[in-house]
């Protein structure tokens, strides 16, 4: 049992650091070490309040300062190990079967808090508050614990709830209990935020206090069911199921255990970020119940097999909501090297509007006080600015540049809003394809194509113009130049080692897929296809196949718009009209489409013979997508000269001009 549990802990814990808030907290820690008592105010342009948990980033920064990237990875492993030990020991009084599954559930529910961030201190706070509440001599330390928690991590008001609802096992009088509670309540205010710590703490535990649900669902503070596919949610469901089952069987414990159970469920349901904290509290409640539960019999072999299977899924990154694989280092999405080239080494100053916490963290770390992130979602929530932040995101995604009036009479439109915040750059995560598509036709242009957080500068800004021009050249090279994508990495990246890839030889396609999707939403489908071919060839992922068909659909739509005709290549490859299948294909066309869909455009062009217009056009595009523009030009020229009146000639002529602008 223990071996299978350790196996699961290793499979889930030995992943590259990928926490959203890592750089944000490391930056906060650096600011604190530099003498700032309110790091948020020093790092964010929109921040006006002091923070209660001002010290939370200092341990993260210390770890990074002393050991670099390895320090962050060691933090993660240590956090996983400590929580694994706590989880295992917490349920030691129950049967072996229950101990294994409840420890697994508890470990999984905390998995979002293993990466370097103060949230780990919140979990330790829950554990200590629960333990100390039942030890008479330790109760005196509870106010100290509350004060430490409040200065280090969010949600410190939970300590009072844990103490209040902990069943009295030590003969604590009501007066003493109230006295301890009062001391804890006072201790909660011993932060730079003062009495407002109470308000902040309650908002952190129940975000709907500060923003309405329509706003919260677009943020990390969304209700739990929006993350129902996460690993932590599965662990929480297991714990909840166990708690309910045990309460049904132990009616005498209901009065004592039902209130904390309900409150923990409420805290988790209101906000998925609170899931580890609320889930861990739930685990302490379940642990109390299992201590009175007789053994239910051993189903060791089946349990161990199932835990081993879960371990395998987690190690391989097959869990769609947890795609990280077994590895060491910093996940590519947190690698700041590309951003460093754009904004890190230059004397650029100003405000950068970031969509999320990773972006705000990256700018805070690289900006060094010159560049400032405008806001960060958690600070925006506490400062009452989250609604404006979300509505600005919505305006960017919907391309509402010009000012307008909303149904609630507020003013929308991103142009004026960004100008009012004196924004000189935008940082958009690559997975936010809605925002990238919204910005595609605007004056905000990408400054690099290599980063997974895409920095944007404004056309016309002298500081941004050289990089914008460089990116345009790169886009043209990828689309129509002698360029083809490199094979997928099997051993990780510059920032991490992919242990799963090393062991199995299976490449990691996530970065290439994300970049292909980014090109699609920037309406560069040919470039997206070029990036997609290695994924289709090597990774065989359903996402890649779906994207391939969407790109064929985009190209077919463009053909239809431009000429009123869809080529046989696009019709066949993309199943453009499922209700109206393409005409009967010859064997050559079938082989061509099969090779193309398998990610071999060059081979597809080679097997397609004939000089009819459709074949010339298809070969031209296939050669272009294979990174052979000279051969594509020859095919398009043949089409133009032989079939001047064919609708596809219009597109061929356009491509000839685009490939050779001097013509």
């Amino acid at each position, binding site marked *: 049992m223990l071996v299978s549990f350790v196996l699961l802990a290793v499979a889930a814990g030995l992943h590259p650091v990928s926490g959203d808030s890592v750089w944000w907290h490391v930056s906060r820690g650096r600011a604190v070490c530099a003498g700032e008592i309110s790091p948020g105010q020093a790092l964010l342009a929109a921040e006006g309040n002091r923070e209660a948990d001002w010290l939370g980033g200092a341990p993260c920064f210390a770890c990074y300062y002393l050991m670099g990237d390895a320090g962050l990875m060691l933090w993660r492993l240590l956090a996983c190990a400590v929580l694994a030990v706590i989880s295992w020991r917490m349920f030691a009084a129950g049967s072996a079967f229950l101990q294994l599954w409840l420890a697994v559930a508890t470990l999984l529910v905390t998995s979002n808090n293993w990466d370097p961030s103060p949230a780990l201190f919140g979990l330790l706070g829950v554990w200590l508050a629960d333990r100390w509440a039942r030890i008479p001599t330790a109760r005196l330390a509870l106010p100290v614990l509350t004060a430490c928690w409040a200065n280090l991590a969010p949600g410190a008001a939970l300590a009072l709830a844990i103490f209040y609802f902990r069943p009295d096992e030590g003969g604590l009088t009501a007066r003493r209990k109230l006295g301890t509670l009062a001391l804890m309540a006072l201790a909660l205010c011993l932060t730079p935020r003062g009495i407002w710590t109470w308000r902040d703490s309650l908002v952190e535990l129940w975000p709907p206090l500060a923003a309405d649900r329509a706003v919260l669902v677009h943020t990390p503070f969304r209700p739990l069911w929006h993350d129902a596919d996460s690993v932590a949610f599965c662990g929480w469901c297991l714990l909840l199921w166990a708690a309910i089952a045990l309460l049904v069987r132990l009616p005498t414990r209901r009065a004592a255990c039902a209130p904390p159970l309900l409150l923990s469920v409420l805290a988790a349901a209101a906000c998925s970020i609170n899931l580890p904290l609320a889930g861990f509290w739930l685990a302490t409640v379940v642990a109390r119940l299992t201590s009175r539960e007789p053994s239910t019999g051993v189903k060791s072999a089946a349990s161990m097999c199932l835990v081993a299977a879960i371990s395998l899924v987690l190690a391989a990154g097959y869990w769609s909501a947890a795609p990280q694989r077994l590895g060491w280092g910093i996940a590519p999405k947190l690698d700041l090297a590309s951003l460093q080239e754009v904004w890190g080494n230059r004397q650029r100053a100003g405000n950068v509007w970031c969509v999320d916490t990773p972006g705000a963290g990256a700018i805070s770390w690289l900006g060094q006080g010159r560049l400032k992130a405008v806001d960060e979602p958690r600070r925006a929530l506490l400062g009452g600015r989250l609604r404006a932040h979300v509505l600005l995101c919505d305006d960017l995604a919907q391309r509402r540049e010009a000012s307008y*009036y909303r149904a609630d009479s507020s003013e929308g439109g991103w142009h004026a809003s960004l100008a009012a915040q004196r924004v000189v750059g935008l940082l958009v995560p690559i997975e936010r394809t809605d925002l990238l598509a919204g910005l595609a036709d605007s004056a905000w242009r990408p400054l690099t194509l290599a980063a997974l957080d895409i920095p944007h500068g404004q056309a016309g800004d002298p500081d941004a113009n050289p990089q914008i021009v460089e990116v345009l050249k790169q886009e043209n090279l990828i689309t129509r130049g002698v360029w083809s994508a490199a094979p997928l990495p099997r051993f990780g990246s510059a920032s991490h080692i992919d242990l799963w890839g090393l062991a199995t030889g299976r490449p990691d396609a996530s970065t290439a897929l994300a970049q292909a999707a980014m090109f699609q939403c920037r309406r560069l489908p040919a470039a997206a296809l070029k990036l997609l071919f290695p994924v289709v060839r090597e990774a065989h992922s359903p996402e890649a196949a779906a994207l391939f068909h969407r790109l064929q659909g985009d190209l077919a739509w463009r053909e239809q718009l431009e000429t009123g005709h869809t080529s046989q290549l696009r019709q066949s490859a993309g199943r453009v009209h499922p209700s109206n299948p393409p005409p009967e294909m010859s064997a050559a066309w079938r082989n061509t489409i099969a090779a193309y869909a398998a990610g071999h455009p060059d081979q597809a062009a080679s097997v397609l013979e004939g000089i009819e217009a459709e074949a010339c056009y298809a070969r031209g595009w296939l050669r272009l997508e294979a990174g052979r523009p000279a051969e594509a030009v020859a095919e398009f020229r043949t089409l133009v000269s032989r079939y001047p009146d064919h609708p596809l000639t219009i597109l061929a002529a356009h491509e000839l001009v685009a490939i050779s602008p001097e013509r």
Partner: protein
Amino acid sequence: MAPCAIGGLAISAAVWLVWPSLLPGPQVESSSRPDAQSCAECHAQQYADFQAALHAQTLRRLADTDLLQQFAGRRFRVSGSGAELGWSDKEGRLLAYVVGQSRTIPLDWAFGSGRHAMTPVAVWENSQRETELLEHRASWYPPGELHATLGLDGHAASNLEELGKWHAPAEAARCFGCHSTRVPQQDGRIGLDHLLPNVQCDRCHQGSQDHARAMRAGQSATGLVHWPALTSLQAIDRCGECHRRADEFSPDELHPESARLVRFAPVGLSLSACFRPGARQPARHADALTCVRCHDPHRPARSDADYYRQRCLECHDPQGGQRKPCPVQPATSLCTTCHMPKVALNAWLSFTDHWIRVREKDGQTAKKSH
């Protein structure tokens, strides 16, 4: 007792959390906007006057105009692109094509009142069923000329651009949004059958549905946007939602020599020396200068220059006006000739420059702004 209370709290919270809630979208997309007929029940005179205003004729189905007869059978060569455009009538539908190509595009909507121009527009749904729009390259100018649409006389980057400017779904919604009172939308698809065309009462008097409901119920609370309580800047920004606002331009663009600005009256007005003293005052304040000070929004714009001279004299009257009278010309002269001249942007279209200023000082303004 406590578990029951917490249980009740939990159930209430769960229901509250799952109850659907949406971010507020543009007002013009709201499905609950009344048409002008319900306003006419009480405001018959304003309604009748407004029917002659150009705002009430900004958008029509092309079949409801005589553009089919004006375009069909004619040819037009776009100077910038070199393409020759042709039009045909197919069963009462106007089709546009590039001469020499077989592909045609049906033009189903006409944007503009026809007083100055009318631009045919094609609308279709893309592969994601979002509404896209093509602003046609050629427009109709009275009395019957075909000429390049303003801003579309340049080089065409693609074959489609020979026929006009393609607008993505969000831009298409904005085009319809300024020419309509209600543009129902879902996932980028405009419900054209339920569109409420033209600028009607509720486009400017937001909250008119609540107002009508309250009035019918005999209540006094109106819920309408109260224009006199807006500041001058807020008032012209409301017009600027469609006619553009100064804060949508960079400082470099707000320049006296920028010919582009004359198209956007609120931008020019907000830069005017006359405007600035009352910009933060309520619109009813004596110092306040807003669009409606000169233009009655319920009637067609006046074309007699003397009417506008009278508006200037309300402040600049030599017989005791609050502001300095003109030191160069007598009060009987037409102010707009010098201070708000017409600027022609093509042979058929000219705009009044609303940046009220002493034009001899433009050089100094340029130096300051640089």
